[in-house]
Structure formats: C-alpha cells, structure tokens
C-alpha cells in the first residue's frame, strides 16, 4: 500500500500505520514524498514494513515497537529515539542524537551519524557504517554501538554498561571510558551483530570501549572528572 505525503496529512498516515487491522494481510507500506516531515512513523507498534522514499525530519520512527522502517534518504535529529524493538534502517546520513535512549531493537545507519549518537542508550543496538560525531554514547547505559568509520571527540563520556566497537580512529575518549580487551567472546558477540545485518567487516579489527566504572559511586578523589 502506498501513501503520498503530498496528498495525505502526517496524522492520517501515522494513524493508519499505528492502528493496523491485524486481520488484513497488508503488512508492506511505502511512503512517498516525506518532505522532511517530523515524527513520521513515530509510535508504530506492529510487525509491519515501511519504506520511506526520501528525507525526513526529526524523530522518525520514534519509540518504534516491532516495525521495520527503511528510510531511503537522510534523517533529522533523534531518529528511532527511545526505540523499544524492531529495525530502523537509514540509507543516508543521520543528524544528532540518533537512537537516543533506545531501549531495544536495531538502528542501522549506512552513512554518518552526527553528534550524540546513542546518547543515554538503554539496550538498543546501533550500527553506523560511516563515522559518528562528538559525545556519541554519552551516558550510554546498555546495548551496543558499532562504528565502522571514525568517532569524534569524547566517545563514551560517562558511559555505564553499554559496549562500543569502533573500526576506525577515535579522536578522544570521554570521562570514565576506556579501551577494553577484544577477546574471543567479544569477537563472537560483534560478529553476530554484523552478520545479522549482512555487514562484511572483520570483527577482529575493531577496538572495544566501555566503562572503567570509576565514576559509578561519587568519590571526592574523582572530583576533576565531574
């Protein structure tokens, strides 16, 4: 089924996709002329496939559950923010805060992601085939951020239990973020993440980063890090 956002309103399209009649066989949708609309496909909750043909604005597929959303274009701030499950695939580049606070599911970005990618992530898997901007994985709580390109300054600042894998160069690590051993278990874990998205890259070549856990409880001796 096709929607044309130059003919239908955002509310009409979102409302249709949020309230799928599960008895119908219709599961595949295409949205044409997204025209940079914000909050397109936000709040989807069923196992459907949506392809968006073009660029979208902020919060595309925000809080997604179960749906598979492909964006054939670039996305604005907060793509798949607070995603719960499902798959969001951006074929272009992503603006700031991609996958922010995501709790589950997978976000794949074929291009680059801007600053704060994976900020406060809470269980989501984010795979960026290009590079990520500064402060990515800031306060990241859990989940995996996989970067095939480079990472800008302060990667993983104040990170908790999330894992970061980066193939390229890291300009600098943020407070309490350190390089960690890339052992067999980690290599297996990363190859499963890559394989699930059909990404050909050698997991052994990645470096892993995570929390030194020295800021987990306030200590006066750490005062310069706060």
């Amino acid at each position, binding site marked *: 089924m096709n929607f044309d956002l130059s003919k239908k309103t*955002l*509310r009409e399209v*979102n*409302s249709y996709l*949020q309230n799928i009649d599960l008895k119908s066989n219709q599961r595949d949708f295409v949205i044409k002329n997204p025209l940079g609309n*914000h*909050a397109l496909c*936000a*709040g989807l*909750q069923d196992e459907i496939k949506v392809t968006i043909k073009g660029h979208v*604005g*902020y*919060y595309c597929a*925000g*809080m997604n*559950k179960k749906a598979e959303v492909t964006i054939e274009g670039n996305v604005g*701030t*907060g793509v798949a*923010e*607070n995603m*719960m499950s499902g798959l969001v695939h951006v074929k272009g580049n992503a603006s*700031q*805060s991609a996958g*922010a*606070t995501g*709790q589950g599911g997978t976000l794949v970005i074929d291009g680059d992601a801007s600053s*704060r990618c994976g*900020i*406060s992530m*809470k*269980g989501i898997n984010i795979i960026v085939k290009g590079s990520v901007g500064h402060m990515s994985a*800031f*306060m990241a*709580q*859990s989940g995996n951020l996989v970067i095939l390109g480079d990472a800008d300054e302060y990667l993983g600042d*104040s990170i*908790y*239990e999330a894992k970061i894998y980066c193939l390229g160069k890291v300009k600098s690590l943020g407070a309490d973020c350190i390089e960690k051993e890339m052992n067999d278990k980690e290599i297996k874990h990363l190859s499963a993440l890559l394989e699930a998205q059909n990404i050909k890259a050698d997991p052994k070549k990645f470096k892993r980063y995570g929390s030194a856990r020295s800021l*987990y*409880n*306030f200590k*006066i001796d750490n*005062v310069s890090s706060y």
Partner: protein
Amino acid sequence: MSEIKKNLKGFSTFPHDTIAEIQRSAREGIYQIRGLGAKRKVPNFDDLVFLGASASRYPLEGYREKCNTSVVIGDRFAKKPITLDIPITIAGMSFGALGANAKDALGRGASAMGTSTTTGDGGMTPEERKSSKYLVYQLLPSRYGMNPDDLRKADAIEVVVGQGAKPGGGGMLLGQKINKRVAQMRNLPEGIDQRSACRHPDWTGPDDLEIKIQELREITNWEKPIYVKVGAARAYYDTALAVKAGADVVVLDGMQGGTAATQDVFIEHVGIPTLGALREAVDSLKELNMHRKVQLIVSGGIRSGADVAKAIAMGADAVSIGSAAMIALNCNADMYPEDYEKLGTAAGYCHHCHTGRCPVGVATQDPELEKRLEPDLAGKRVKNYLATLTLELQTLARANGKSDVRNLEPEDLAALTVEAAAMARVPLAGTTWIPGYDK
C-alpha cells in the same frame, strides 16, 4: 546555658550552622547533597492577605452557597482534557526517591479527591497507575523507564524542562537507594549512583521542543494534554516559549520547591521565589491572550488552602504539591526519634531523603522501613489533607464573594511587605502603592 555564654555576642555573618557547615566541608571536601526545599526564608504567600468582603463586595454564605473548585486541564489541543474536581494536584516525585507504598498512598489520596498525581524520574509503576484516577506521566532528560505503552496509559504527559529546586540541574539518586526493582526500571546495575541528565538527550531549545511535543502527540493520537514544567528562572520568557512550543499546560515550580536530592547550594541559591515567578508567568499568558486557555499550575512551597487561594487569585489555574504531601504521609513526624538521630537529625529538621534511611518509610526502598507507611491509612491522610485545603480555599473564595475559586483575582489581595507588593504586584496593605509599577 553557662553564665559566660549568655553574655557572648554571636556573629551574624557566621551563625552556628554556617560555622558547622564550613567545618564539615573542611573535613569532607564535598558539597552537601540533601532533599526537600529551601530552608531560608523568601518572600512568599504569607506576605499576602485577602481583603474579604466589604460594603462594595458581598460575601457568599459558607456551606450553603456553591463555590466551584473543578478545573478543566489541557483543552487547548488535547482531544481528552482532564477535569479535576479540585485545583490541587500531586507533583511529580520519582519512584526510587519515594518508595512504592508512598507512591501508592499519594495515588489513593489524590484519586479519592478527584485529582491527579504524577510519576517522576524513574518511570510509571503499575501500583501508581492502578491507584491513580488521573496520572500525569513525566518525560524527563533521563528517560528512565520511558516507553510508548505507559505514554498511552497516562492521562497527561509532562515534559520536564526544569524544577524549582534546581533550575539547570540534573538529578542524582545515590547508590544506597538503588535496589533491584529501581535498578531494573532504570536499566542500570544495582547500587550505583544514578545521575539524571540536566538536558534532554534529543532536543535543545524551544524550536526543538515544539517538534518533540508534536512527536508525543503523534504517538498518543493527540489525546493527552501536554504539560511543560519549568523551574522558576525566567518565568516570563519560559512561559511564552512553552506556549509557543504548543503546550496545553505550563507547570511553574518556584525556588522553594522540594527535591529528592540536590546540592544544597542549588536549592538555596538558584531560581526565584514562587511569588515573583507566578506573576511573571501570568503576565506572559495575558500578553499572549492565553490566560485560562493554557492552564498554569504552580508549585513550590504550597502548604495551606490560603496558599492555594492566593496562587489562584494571582492567576494560577491550579497548584501542585510535593513536600506538603510527603508531610501528610508523615515526613518529619515526631516518631522513631532514634532513627532520625542515626541520620544526625531530628523530626522537623530532616532533609535526608537522599540517604534512603527515611525514618517514617516515605523516601526509602528499605522493606523494613517501608512497612512504617501503610498505603491505605496513609492514602486517607493525603485525602484528608487535600479535603482540608479545599475547604480552606472555598472559605476564602466565599469570603471574597466568589462562586468559583478561579474568580479570585489580584484585586482581592493586599501585601504585607514591600517585597511581596513588588513581586506579586498587589498594593501594600493600606496604600495604593505597588513598588516599581507605574500604571
């Protein structure tokens, strides 16, 4: 007191508590973190009085003539605004800061009075959803426990930009309060300090906020009233920006407002008093022709029906209470003196919510301490307290000849101090003088 001490003159710059605090910081090398609101005195609603009826205004008969207290919240854009029976709501207090029994009791008390309660920085618990007739769900920078299902289960959504106790500050739930359930809801390991960011992860500034609000409305079918909560800093502009961003409701929290845990320096020195902020917010709404169209809920130091009536007379549509609701639950009650002592404090002085060792079972996750708060009984106390506030509010409204509490107006008020007259912009009692206001 010894004879010598009686004759000694203390320092007004260095009273005992200041000396003790300097020496504590010299020992420990760290600022003080604590709970509840400002302890210093600031101009407040006590500095205003109602004029009551007179030859030119006739009063309504108490207990006989109707005085409406209900208020519709969120009818600007939301398809399903909520109608509160009383204009007094329970403010957002996190599960984590408060125990599950306390949250449950607040829900029961508020529901019995037909008003709302609010989640907090830690997500929605099934207990509070069940016990709350109207539940406002907060969207905070931390997004702990945030999910679209709870968003849809809520009766309204409150985007928290700031709090009066700490405008510009994030949160900190110390590790000692993080048990298994709290940790799971926040997706973090047990026992570690849980920092809540001071800024939202996916928007900055009012233009972004407008888009964020649009997203929340899209996810919830434009049904839920959207509140924007700000700490009292630049209330005039913050109110205007919240209105511009599309809020249905502005929640304004004055500097006296309580918190679960913040640096004392923040609590006492950042933000402006509720009195001045409220007037600025009302000015802003009036200028935009949005007064009573976008509802204004005010909090920070509300204790009595008189405070509620004065806030409404100054232009608020409703108030919200945090600390006083906890006090109704028994916070700072004169019981278990040995447990207050273990915290180094006493009933009436306690601000130790951050420790997790609350002597009365309100701000704790400890199962033994929590037993001290029985949700059913405590819920009844909250209900009684809210009922008392409502009766006081109606008494004052009738005395000023009002059949609806929201007909109270600034003209019904006089100020007792020059400061309050200037901040609230009502004349100093017995004069027509409003400092700094040139009609």
